[in-house]
């Protein structure tokens, strides 16, 4: 970046510039007063902005049709995570066709940089970054989100279903 200096005579007249600026402010003030619907600013936190569903916000662990966790504990998200904020402990599943599942899955939200690499690494669409973007908390709040929060928090209404289904994959011969 370079600095461009304007040393011309006209630039020494500052008053017209200031008046132009004030004019713009006044124009918007009047416009917003009489046309509140098209106002850009919102009254946060009473009003909240709706981001697109593709926004990379808080993580969601998806579930299978029966409501159990889709994650297979392959650790690819934890491996791919640049902030190293994902901790998974795997265990043997009683169902042989499932074989491996996470008994604990924790994301340290204060470390997370919301890059979405975990989502990209996941082979079974088990983790997604959802549109939720507000994560406030007072002193001592727990930002180590566990399975209960990541998959079954109240606003997910019983869990988001994964698009990768093992039963259907097996039926199609994979």
């Amino acid at each position, binding site marked *: 970046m370079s600095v461009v200096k304007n040393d011309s005579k006209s630039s020494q007249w500052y008053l017209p510039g200031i008046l132009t600026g004030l004019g713009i402010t006044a124009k918007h003030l009047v416009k917003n007063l009489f046309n509140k619907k098209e106002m850009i600013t919102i009254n946060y936190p009473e009003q909240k902005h709706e981001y697109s569903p593709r926004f990379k916000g808080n993580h969601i662990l998806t579930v299978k049709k029966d409501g159990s966790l889709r994650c297979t504990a*392959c650790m690819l998200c934890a*491996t791919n995570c640049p902030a190293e904020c994902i901790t998974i402990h795997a265990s043997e599943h009683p169902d*042989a066709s499932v*074989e491996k599942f996470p008994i604990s899955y924790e994301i340290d939200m204060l470390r997370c940089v919301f890059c979405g690499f975990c989502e990209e690494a996941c*082979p*079974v669409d088990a983790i997604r970054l959802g549109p939720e973007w507000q994560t406030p908390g007072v002193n001592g709040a727990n930002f180590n989100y566990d399975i209960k929060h990541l998959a079954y928090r109240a606003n997910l209404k019983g869990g988001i279903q994964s698009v990768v289904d093992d039963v259907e994959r097996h039926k199609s*011969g994979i």
Partner: protein
Amino acid sequence: MSEIITENKTEKKMLNCKINGVALFVKEGSTIIQAMYENQQKIAHYCWHPGLSIAGVCRLCMVEVTGNPRLQIACNTQVIEGMDINNTSAKVIEATKWGLDFHLINHPLDCPVCDQAGECGLQDQYMEFGQYNSEMAEPKTKKHKVVDLGPTVVLDSERCILCSRCVRFTDEVSKTNELGIFNRGDHAEIGTHAGKKLDNKYSLNTVDICPVGALTSKDFRFRQRAWYLKDAETICNGCSTGCSTKVYFNKEGLFRVKPKHNAAVNGYWMCDEGRNTYKFVNKESRLLKSYQFKNNSWGFESMAGAATRNLINIFKTAKADEMALVLTGQQTVEEYEAIVSFFADHLKSKNIFHWNNNESTVNDFDGLLIRGDKNPNTKGLLQVLSKHQISTKWTDLENQLASGKIKNLVVVGPENISVYNDLELKLNLFSKAEHLIYLSSASLPQWENIKTLKYVTVIPLKTYIEKSGTFINYAGLAQKFNKVTTVVSEALTVSEFAQLAKGEELKIEYVVSENLMTSEHQRADQVVLEHRKKNEFVFNRGQF
């Protein structure tokens, strides 16, 4: 083991041959794959293993021999004089590629849940030769998953490529014949004979030699992904055989032990018992701090070094015949030398005793690797003791403790306490001493059961993983090993204990910053380039 046998045979004629344009000098009778393996040439293979017989079933080790219109398998073709072999031509690569596709026809591709992922033969060869979409349109054959083969091994027949390495292992090495291949065609699968379990003392070797994730170890299953672990070479301290091993570890501790090829000792194998020797190294079973038992209660927690310094006065003032030292066969030769010379030369005490936990089984041998002497360094201890002309009997110690002649007793306790069945009995005996100084790497819950304790100081020791040294095995072979990693940093080695007890300061090695990057100053657990290459995915992230 087979390698030892071939070496013992009479001198063989050497043959000239050319592999991939490199002129080689090869022993007569060796196969092409052996010649390539010994000369560090790369060749894809699944069924061939240097320690097993030739099966020739995977058809992956294809080579082109000049003068022969068809490709040959390298594992079952012997080298003849003037042979010109290559495995890098387009024809060979094409053959390997489609051979691999046949292996993958019914492979379930469940790498995400497979323990072998990261060290899998199929993944390696696919990255090398494959990278195509499968030509198969038919659905995959379903087979049994998570089959409980025995107390140590789990089978997944879908992942199996029927290389028959495990079957040949149970036939030829362990000679227990539990495994076999059942059914025909694409329904063929590995299994055990009716009513039998894969239950022998070497069963986990089948997991090591399985090139895919068909056989997995119950102990290691799902505990870590392979790429999170670093490996380092060491010597097994499970028994007096002293197999060369590799331990796999990360900052959370140690996770598994695998054999490393050593023709002079263990060949390619190791026993299942030796694979448990990582467990007593991990923090959960370790003594972390020094404690004192005084006035009928355990208390006064302190650091190991400080606790040893507090003992200096005792060593200075006590009479030589009031002191005694008890040693087990679990420490290194260097440590024995340090502590025995401290007692014999510095304190002028000849009361040094050998705690032998398995006198009756010392010479037991199962014919392959396992020996009855469960200490890695009994020979080393005996050598050091005879060097200092110490010949004492265990009954002397018992008598002297009973009569109250020995006031201060130093015991260097065992690391692997699971093989010390007489531990509680011996602790009861030691507790007769007025002041018992017990050096141990393991935390002992047995102290609770001993009612006759008077005054005890326990001091944490380092295990064989955390120090460099030498073990002398049953045959008198001295094997040096290096420190792998540190688990309990505040623990002492026996040499350090002897040094502190003398009143000397510990020499702490430090490195000038200019020398920091040179190879001789590298930390034992430093990630070196080799590991980086192996874990390319982790370390190169962000560069693509």
